């Protein structure tokens, strides 16, 4: 070990080229809670990386507030070593992260440092050949979102494997779909299922998934990494971790770092899916930083640019035009509400930025409806354009049946004396609700969803009691997988169509199943 150290030192000394130059310098005039105030450095630019020379070595900071007399900077390392009077130098670089295929399967912090104990991610320095023969590159954390001309409409589905979402609130590649709900309502579970399902969605290109943990407990992040590994989903996933114990600076930077990684794959013509878990904590971190920088507080003490903080981040999720490779970055931001209040500042902001929201309710969760999705107020503004024809064919009828059921459900609570037709509709609604229930970590491939929805909407569950719905559903799936993989499931999966021929085949298969 000591031999290696001596060799490294020898190499550094032998290769050192002395080239002293005049440098622009500033001085630290104030330090506190991860924030420093600096005088001097009149030509520094916003988001520039600054180097602070302390008695314990060099520390890195990020220029955030450029004021007339001073610069407010965010310390990215240990700020306890910084003292008033320390020299600060410019680097002329904006904050960036090294990106590449090597990141897949790794857990990193927002600055790109490995957190999983598996050693260096990029063995070769930036700009030289990476391990897969591609040039590795650095992407800035703050980048311009694609313009109108660089985009195209969302047209490819991103199946989550969750029946209620894929049928009623479909998500397209390049969309921003908010997952919103109180604590303990299964927000992360929905996002995790979406990641896991990419392994089963074989009809389309598999997206690279990025899970950004902002202010989450270390134990939760470990659990998520283990779950992804267990289900072989870590093979196409990157985890960006800014845990609860990391400073506010890391919480603030984590979504931008994740987005920069997602953009690398998007710009290469690949698809990427990014989960921001969660943006409420991100807003808290930015509020803390802004208050320490003495920016004027606004509503709920958030700074004036809190909307822009999230809009500029989420605008980077896009479906690129064919000329630019046709890649996409789909964003699933998560927001935690307090007592279901979606009218709070941050939830309303993000609802207005995104292309729809998946609303999870604690009441539904405690009633045993999992996922606890409120179908009535959840929407997807652009996803239906990306839905496969097969799903569209069955989902239209599903929405209608559910809407009728919701109307009648309220009525039934007051009167038990209802006619046969109404009773039938209520029973049908209850069965659909049962079908929409799904355990977490068991996403269902979309072709199987199509078959199940077809069966329930066309009376094949008529003689099945509500408590037996789940077991019957399981048996139908097993029957189809065993006997009709080639003639029914595979064509739906590969073509996304559900034409009359396939419908007739499915009808026959379901009838044969019922006969048994």
């Amino acid at each position: 070990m000591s031999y290696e150290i001596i060799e490294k030192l020898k190499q550094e000394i032998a290769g050192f080229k002395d080239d002293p130059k005049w440098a622009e310098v500033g001085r630290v005039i104030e330090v506190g809670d991860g924030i420093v105030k600096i005088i001097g450095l009149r030509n520094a630019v916003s988001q520039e990386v600054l180097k602070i020379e302390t008695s314990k070595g060099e520390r890195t900071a990020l220029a955030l507030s450029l004021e007339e007399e001073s610069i407010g900077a965010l310390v990215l390392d240990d700020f306890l070593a910084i003292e008033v009077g320390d020299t600060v130098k410019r680097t002329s670089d904006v904050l960036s992260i090294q990106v590449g295929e090597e990141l897949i399967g790794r857990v990193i912090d927002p600055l790109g440092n490995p957190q999983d104990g598996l050693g260096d991610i990029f063995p070769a320095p930036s700009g030289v050949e990476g391990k897969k023969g591609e040039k590795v590159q650095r992407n800035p954390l703050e980048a311009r979102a694609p313009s109108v001309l660089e985009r195209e409409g969302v047209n490819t589905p991103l199946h989550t494997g969750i029946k209620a979402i894929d049928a009623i609130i479909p998500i397209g590649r390049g969309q921003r779909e908010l997952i919103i709900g109180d604590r303990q309502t299964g927000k992360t579970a929905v996002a995790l299922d979406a990641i896991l399902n990419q392994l089963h969605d074989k009809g389309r290109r598999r997206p690279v998934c990025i899970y950004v943990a902002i202010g989450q407990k270390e134990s939760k992040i470990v659990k998520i990494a283990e779950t992804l590994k267990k289900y072989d989903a870590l093979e196409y996933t990157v985890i960006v971790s800014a845990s609860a114990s990391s400073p506010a600076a890391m919480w603030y930077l984590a979504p931008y770092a994740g987005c920069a990684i997602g953009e690398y794959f998007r710009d290469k013509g690949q698809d990427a899916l990014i989960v921001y878990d969660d943006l409420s904590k991100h807003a808290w971190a930015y509020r803390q930083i802004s208050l320490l920088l003495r920016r004027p507080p606004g509503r709920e003490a958030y700074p004036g640019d809190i909307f822009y903080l999230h809009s500029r981040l989420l605008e980077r999720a896009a479906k690129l035009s064919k000329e630019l490779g046709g890649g996409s970055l789909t964003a699933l931001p998560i927001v935690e509400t307090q007592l279901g209040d979606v009218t709070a500042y941050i939830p309303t902001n993000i609802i207005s930025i995104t292309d729809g929201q998946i609303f999870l309710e604690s009441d539904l969760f405690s009633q045993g409806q999992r996922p606890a999705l409120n179908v009535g107020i959840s929407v997807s503004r652009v996803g239906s354009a990306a839905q496969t024809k097969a799903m569209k064919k069955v989902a239209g009828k599903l929405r209608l049946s559910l809407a009728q059921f919701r109307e009648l459900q309220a009525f039934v609570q007051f009167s038990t004396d209802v006619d046969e037709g109404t009773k039938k509709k209520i029973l049908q609604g209850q069965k659909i609700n049962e079908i929409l229930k799904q355990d977490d970590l068991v996403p269902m491939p979309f072709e199987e969803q199509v078959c199940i929805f077809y069966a329930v909407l066309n009376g094949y569950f008529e003689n099945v009691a509500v408590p037996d719905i789940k077991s019957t559903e399981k048996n139908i799936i097993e029957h189809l997988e065993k006997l009709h993989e080639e003639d029914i499931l595979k064509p739906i999966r590969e073509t996304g169509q559900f034409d009359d021929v396939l419908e007739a085949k499915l009808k026959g298969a379901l009838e044969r199943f019922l006969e048994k």
Partner: protein
Amino acid sequence: MKYLIQDYAKALAAVVVEARSSDGAMIQRNFRSLLQKNSDEARGGKILEATARLLRAKQGGREVILESARKLSASHRQELEKFLRPDDQAVERVNPSLVAGVRITVDGEYEFDGSLRGKMDKIFGNI
């Protein structure tokens, strides 16, 4: 309204340039009472520094700090003085932490680090 240090400095520098030599005490007194009135006494030191910098700049001069590990010899001083302008205000400081060589700072905003300490930091910072 909170005045900027730079605004105070510009005003004070303009008054100093226009004043007669006998007005010194009066300017000092008035400046102190202005700071008291605006509750800006704590910023007085920085305002004076900024004013001195402005006055120096007006005459084409700069504040140059020459730091060396040991006291400069006459020949070294002569060598360094070649880089100074006639109106520059040079300050010499001995800073043993530099180990060897010199470090020059101009107006607190530009630095030339020719010290051994700086070189060592660069070498070992890469490891």
